[in-house]
């Protein structure tokens, strides 16, 4: 069972929390303007890194708040946690690092498939 640092309540056992997936995936401001590829990426594509991962948790059986955390998915150690709506702290590798380049330049090829 993980020990999870809620930024409001402090370290609590995993049983008090609900996992809510990769963080910082903002709903597109104008969904109607998205093509199918971009919409599919928003809904389904995930970075799923082996390493540092920014993710959302909810302290369901505590303060009830959603928050973000950076956890290493190889060691399961938490590096930091921070309030929902704030940016990923500097110094933690970002999700868009070179080990997971986006496939934007392949968009055309989807159309041909």
């Amino acid at each position, binding site marked *: *069972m*993980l020990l999870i640092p809620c930024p409001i309540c402090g370290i609590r056992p*995993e*049983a008090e*929390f*609900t*996992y809510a*997936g990769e963080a910082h995936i903002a709903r597109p401001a104008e969904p109607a303007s998205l093509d*199918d*590829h971009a*919409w*599919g*990426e928003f*809904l*389904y*594509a*995930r*970075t*799923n*890194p*082996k390493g540092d*991962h920014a*993710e959302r948790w909810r302290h369901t059986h505590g303060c009830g708040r959603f928050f973000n955390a950076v*956890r290493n*998915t*190889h*060691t*399961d150690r938490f590096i930091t946690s921070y309030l929902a709506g704030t940016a990923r702290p500097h110094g933690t590798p970002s999700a868009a690092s070179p*080990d*997971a*380049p*986006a*496939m934007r*330049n*392949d968009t055309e*090829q*989807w159309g041909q*498939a």
Partner: protein
Amino acid sequence: MKHFSAARLLREAVRGQSGWTEHWRSPDRPAPAYDAVIVGAGGHGLATAYYLAKQHGITRVAVLEKGWLGGGNTGRNTTIIRSNYLMAESAALYDHAVKLWEGLSRELNYNVMFSPRGVMMLAHTVHDVQVAKRHVYANQLAGIDNDWLSPAQAQAYCPPLRLDAGMRYPVLGAALQRRGGTARHDAVAWGYARAASALGVDIVQNCEVTGIRRDASGAICGVDTTRGAVSARRVGVVAAGHTSVVMAQAGVRMPIESYPLQALVSEPVKPCFPCVVMSNTIHAYISQSDKGELVIGAGTDAYTSYSQQGGLHIATHTLDAICELFPQFRRMRMLRNWGGIVDVTPDRSPIIGKTPVPGLYVNCGWGTGGFKATPGSGHVFAHTMAHDAPHPINAPFALDRFRTGQLIDEAAAAAVAH
């Protein structure tokens, strides 16, 4: 490769078992070039290589494995085999595999110990009963065996099952697929490895793929590994929980999340459990191996992870359910527990097919339930790689479905896939 037969066993018995040789060639490093490279020597990757060589005449094939052959989910799973899925596309895919399982030991000349002892899925609530009956009738219409059993019939099929109205989750009935069962996981990997190697396939262990090379046009031209570079025009990624990591090397983001899934076995006891019993509602799966161990499958952890170990509270939850259903097991001791990393898709159906990168193919997303599909998956994926076009059975399982929205939603159908 020496052929296994009763005569050969007898001959070796009188010669002190001195005539056996290694089952497959194990080259130290890959050759500089192949016609096709498979990333990952799990059951699915090895089966793909075997069918590429056997059915499509493509024998210049390498299977590159970062650890040891069969050391991923193939060697860590609870080996439940069944094809009673709700969606027509899934039922066709998994039943294709069950039909191949039925002749696999003969096909590979290797005993994979396929044991169609029946898979019984319990219903504990009115909702469960309705869902299970819906599966049963959908399967019957699709020509796939699945029967509805009353509680008494379920207990007749599996005498250890407790029927007691006082239970927290009483058994209200069960769906039984008689053609379902188990197979020996290691033997499946070893059997495919041996047969593929005999046809010329190179299986290179301790050889991690660290980069995927693309030429100026963007098409695949090879891979980098910890044992040197390899050129190839076709690369098939069959890396289960590590799919996102490998595909990122080619710049492709996947609709996959990796979760730990754990299983455990008890001390071995005499035969006492005749079939496979599963309960999705209370999260428990159990069968007895031929060695006598009870093989028990637990759920996934809540969060993504590559740690290959699950939380103890997840296993405890499953053992609570097992002890309630089968009180006679309460005093048994558990010998080992372990985890694998499963590749879960949003619709809980696999992805088998082409990718946006020419020459790059992917076979993944089997999540918590791909062992049962091993022969069928390898068979249709080899077809896809050989023809650069899917087999009719895997055509609906394209990666592109997450753009078109044509999902095969077993997630909604089962909540848990196994």
